[in-house]
């Protein structure tokens, strides 16, 4: 499958590496050219030699999305550090580019829940942390 990941932070770059290792076509889009380095952590080769694609640009720019291959993408992952950017670009990917599977990282549990009801596949790390703390606390107190 062709997977387009916008935002190569800790989460985005790790997901990109594992998806590439699993044999998928992986394209990464990030505003920061230096984020490319993070993709190569733990690799013996460059990201491109390993078969990955990397584009510098913002997830709302048509040119950047096109260059990153959004027209061919089967999966779109929004994992920038901004909830509002993620929610906006994932809706663009879903409604304008009609990417079949769109997954979006949202830190705010309230917005994550509401946008999930609206049909977005949201992942909320904060909600997971809350639940893990609650269960850890439940075991000791």
């Amino acid at each position: 499958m062709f997977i387009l990941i916008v935002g190569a932070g800790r989460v985005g770059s790790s997901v990109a590496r594992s998806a590439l290792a699993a044999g998928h076509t992986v394209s990464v889009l990030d505003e920061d050219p230096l984020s490319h380095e993070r993709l190569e952590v733990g690799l013996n080769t460059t990201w491109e030699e390993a078969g990955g694609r990397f584009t510098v640009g913002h997830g709302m720019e048509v040119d950047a999305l096109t260059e990153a291959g959004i027209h061919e993408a089967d999966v779109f992952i929004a994992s920038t550090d901004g909830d509002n950017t993620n929610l906006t670009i994932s809706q663009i990917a879903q409604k304008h580019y009609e990417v079949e599977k769109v997954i979006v990282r949202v830190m705010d549990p309230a917005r994550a829940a509401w946008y999930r009801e609206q049909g977005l596949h949201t992942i909320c790390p904060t909600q997971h942390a809350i639940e893990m703390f609650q269960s850890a606390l439940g075991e000791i107190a």
Partner: protein
Amino acid sequence: MYVIIAGGGKVGWNLARELIAKGNEVTLIENRRMRYLTIEQELEHAIQYGDATELWVLERAGIQRADLTIAVTGDDEDNLLVCQMAKEKYLCERIIARVNNPRNRAWFELLGIQPAVSATDLILRLIEHEVPSYGLVHLLDLRDEQLEIIEVEVGPDSRAANTAVQDMDLPEGALIISLLRGGRGFVPKADTVIEPGDEVLLVLDPGLEDAITEQFASGTRGAA
């Protein structure tokens, strides 16, 4: 009317002032602490501190009873989401969004956020209006109704010059509604002859601008 404004920059603060002066109830939401404290000196309880893209902040401001939500932060994604949640989650009847980067205008339209106001576009439109040689001027766009009203100047050697209205070869979906001549406007009859230098107002279906320019711009007579 109860109005919520997201973003206490120059636009937001001045909008709040004007709306309050006109007798409206206003809550301005600002998430920069220093800015909030400055504005609070003047607006007092009409400003709240917080991130307007968070649901609890919107709810604390009373979004459920807002008649109008205006998002004018410096961030397009924030403006888009504030308006989207106001409209779709809280069923706020009217929204207005600011577009900072005109390239993002299409995304506001895609997600149904209308009207979306872009300062760059407004200034461009003013330039068009001030400089008639620019050709065709948009006077009004009714996006939902899919209609626009435009103004165009008749070039001296255009196809339209010295042609009666009934003999104009206008595309389907275009209608001449008024002529401006010598500072006076009037509704033309079928046999009214369009003169060079006239300004013509037309109602158009969207997308006919090029066909209209062809009829009215200078030098089109020979190209016919």
